[in-house]
C-alpha cells in the first residue's frame, strides 16, 4: 500500500480584527491509496480549514499557512501541495483531488444548469468538447443515481431535493476520476434516510473507482461504516489516530472517549443517558501552552496544565496525544 498524501505539521492562522485565530496547529497525517480516512471533531476543531489549506482554498487574507508540507503523489509525480503555483494547484483541484462540501443547497450555482456545472469541470481538466462533456456528464449523472439523466442535465439546482443536489456535487467531485476525494461533512445537512443513501453511494463509488477518501464529520457514529482509519481533532490539533475498530473499542484519548459516550448505542440499556462532553470548545484566539482539552477533561492532572502533550505511539498503528493512561488509570510513564 503506497502513501498518496502525506501532511506534516500544517499550521494555518487567520489574522482577524479580533486577533489571531489559531485554526490549525500542527496537523500531520497520511493517506494511503484507496483508503478512507475519517477526520472527526466538534465543530470549530479545524477540520475544514485543514482541508482547504491543502487545496489553496483558504481566503488569504485573513488566512495564512504558516508552515507545513503536504506531499501528494500526483499524476506528474511527487509534489508539495503547499508549494505549488496557483496554476499548478488549479490543475490538481477538481482534476486529481475532488471536493464535496457540506451544504448542497448553497454549493451549487443557482442560475446555471447542473449539467453545465458538471461539464465545465470536464472541459477544464479533460479538454473535452462541449458535446463530449455533455455525454460524459449524462453518464456521471446516472452513475450517481439520478434518474432521467438526459432530462435532468438541463435542470437547475432549485428543481432538486437536498439529497439529489448532493449527488450532483458528488458527480462534480468524481467527474475527472480523481485520486482523492475530500468530503467535508457531506451528509450533515441531510435528513437521516437520505444520509444513509449518500453514504451508500459514496462507498459504491469509492470501491468502483478505487479512490482514496477523506471523510470529515463531527459524528463518530457514521464513521464505522465507511472509514478504515480515524483521525480525531481537537482545537486544531490531532489528538488521536487509529484504526476504526481501535477507536471504538480502545480509545486512548479522553476526548475520543467523550465523543463515544455522546453516541446513542444499540446495546446500551434504556436507562443509560447520553453524556455530552462538558464545557465548550477552546478559544482559538489564545495560543495554547498546555493541553487544550485539560479544562474539560475528567482525568487532567498537573502535567496537563504545564505542557502540550505530543502525539505518541500507544499501540499498533495507534497514536494519541495524552499524558493519562486510560487503561492503567494513572499518568502515562514514558
Amino acid at each position, binding site marked *: 500500500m503506497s502513501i498518496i498524501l502525506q501532511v506534516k505539521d500544517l499550521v494555518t492562522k487567520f489574522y482577524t480584527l479580533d486577533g489571531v485565530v489559531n485554526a490549525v496547529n500542527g496537523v500531520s497525517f497520511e493517506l494511503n491509496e484507496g483508503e478512507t480516512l475519517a477526520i472527526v471533531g466538534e465543530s470549530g476543531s479545524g477540520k475544514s480549514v485543514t482541508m482547504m489549506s491543502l487545496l489553496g482554498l483558504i481566503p488569504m487574507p485573513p488566512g495564512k499557512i504558516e508552515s507545513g508540507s503536504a506531499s501528494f503523489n500526483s499524476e506528474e509525480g511527487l509534489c508539495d501541495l503547499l508549494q505549488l503555483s496557483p496554476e499548478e494547484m*488549479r490543475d490538481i483541484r477538481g482534476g486529481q483531488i475532488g471536493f464535496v462540501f457540506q451544504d448542497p443547497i448553497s454549493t451549487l450555482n443557482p442560475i446555471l444548469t447542473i449539467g453545465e456545472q458538471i461539464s465545465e469541470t470536464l472541459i477544464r481538466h479533460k479538454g473535452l468538447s462541449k458535446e463530449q462533456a455533455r455525454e460524459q456528464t449524462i453518464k456521471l449523472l446516472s452513475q450517481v443515481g439520478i434518474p432521467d439523466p438526459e432530462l435532468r442535465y438541463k435542470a437547475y439546482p432549485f428543481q432538486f431535493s437536498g439529497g439529489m443536489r448532493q449527488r450532483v456535487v458528488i458527480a462534480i467531485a468524481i467527474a475527472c476520476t480523481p485520486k482523492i476525494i475530500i468530503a467535508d461533512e457531506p451528509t450533515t445537512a441531510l435528513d437521516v434516510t437520505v444520509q444513509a443513501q449518500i453514504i451508500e453511494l459514496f462507498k459504491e463509488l469509492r470501491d468502483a473507482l478505487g479512490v482514496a477518501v477523506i471523510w470529515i464529520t463531527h459524528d463518530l457514529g457514521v464513521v464505522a461504516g465507511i472509514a478504515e482509519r480515524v483521525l480525531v481533532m481537537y482545537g486544531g490539533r490531532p489528538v488521536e489516530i487509529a484504526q476504526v475498530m481501535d477507536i471504538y473499542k480502545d480509545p486512548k484519548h479522553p476526548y475520543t472517549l467523550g465523543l463515544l459516550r455522546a453516541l446513542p448505542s444499540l446495546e446500551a440499556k434504556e436507562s443509560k443517558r447520553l453524556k455530552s462532553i462538558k464545557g465548550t470548545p477552546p478559544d482559538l484566539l489564545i495560543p495554547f501552552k498546555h493541553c487544550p482539552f485539560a479544562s474539560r477533561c475528567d482525568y487532567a492532572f498537573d502535567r496537563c496544565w504545564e505542557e502540550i502533550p505530543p502525539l505518541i505511539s500507544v499501540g499498533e498503528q495507534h497514536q494519541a496525544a495524552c499524558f493519562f493512561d486510560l487503561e492503567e488509570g494513572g499518568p502515562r510513564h514514558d
Partner: protein
Amino acid sequence: MGRYFLSKLIQSLVLLFGVLFLVFMMVRVTGDPAALMLSRNASPEQLEALREEMGFNDPALVQFKHYITGAILGDFGNSLHFKTPALPLVLERLPATVQLASVGMLMAIIIGIPIGLVGGFTPGSVVDSIGRFLALIGQSVPNFWLGLMMILFLGVRLGWFPTFGRDSWNSVVMPAFVLGLPVMGQLVRLTRSAVLEIRGEDFIRTAHSKGLEPRTIYLKHVLRNVAIPLVSVIGVQFGYMLGGSIYIEAIFAWPGMGGLLAQSIGWRDFPLIQAIAVFTSLIVLLLNLLTDLAYSIIDPRIRYGR
C-alpha cells in the same frame, strides 16, 4: 416562461386601468373641475359652457366610459391652453425626454458598473475609494445645485457645453449627467456589494474547487449573479428618469415632457395633465414588463416561478 410573462402582462393591464381610474377621479373629486380649469373670475356662463363641452354634466358612469374609450384610442381631449389634441403635444416632447433619460442612464451604467465591479473585486483599492466617493456624492448632492454649478463652470466659464436647450449634439451632456449621477452612485454601491456578497458564496468556493480559471469564475459565476439585482434597479430607475425630470428639464430648458408637465400644471390644463400622466404610466409599466422579462432570462428561478 410564457405563463410567467402572461401573468405579468395581466398585472400591468390591471395597473394601467387603476392609473386611468385614479387620474379620472383626481380631476373630479378635487372640486368642480370646470371651476378648477378656468380662472377665478370666469362668469357662470363660461363655466356652464365648459362643463357642457367637457361632458361634466353627464352621469359619472357615462363620463367614465367616454374617458376610457378616449384613452384607449389615444384621445384625451383638446389641450385647454393650445386648443389642439393633448396626446400629440405629449408625443412631440417624447424624443427629448427619451434622449435625456437614455443618455443619463447610459452614463450611469458605463461609469457606475465598472467602478463598482473593480471595487467589489479589490476592496480598499484606489478605484474602490473613488467609487465610494462617487456613490456618496451621487446620493447627497442636490441635482438643482449641481445643474447650476455645471452651467456656471462647464457652460459659462469654460464654454464646453451649451447652457440650455437642445440645439446642438452636446446639449444633452450636462442635463443627462445631472440626471444620471444619483443612479450612477447607486449602481456603484449596489454592484460593489453584490460582487462582494457573491464572491463569498459557497458556490464560488465550489467553482474554485473545480480548478476553474479565475477569469471563468468571475465571468460565468460571479457576474451573472451580480446582474440580477442590477437589472431590477436599472429598470426602476429608468422609469423614474423618463417620468420625473421636471427640475432638470426646467434648469436646462430641456424641451421634454417634464417641462411640459410643469407648464400644464401652471395652466391648469387638465386634459394635457391627464395625457401626460397616463402616457408616463404606460411607459413605466412597459419598462417594468421589459425588466421582468430580462430578469427571467437571467434568473431561472423566476422563469420557473420559484
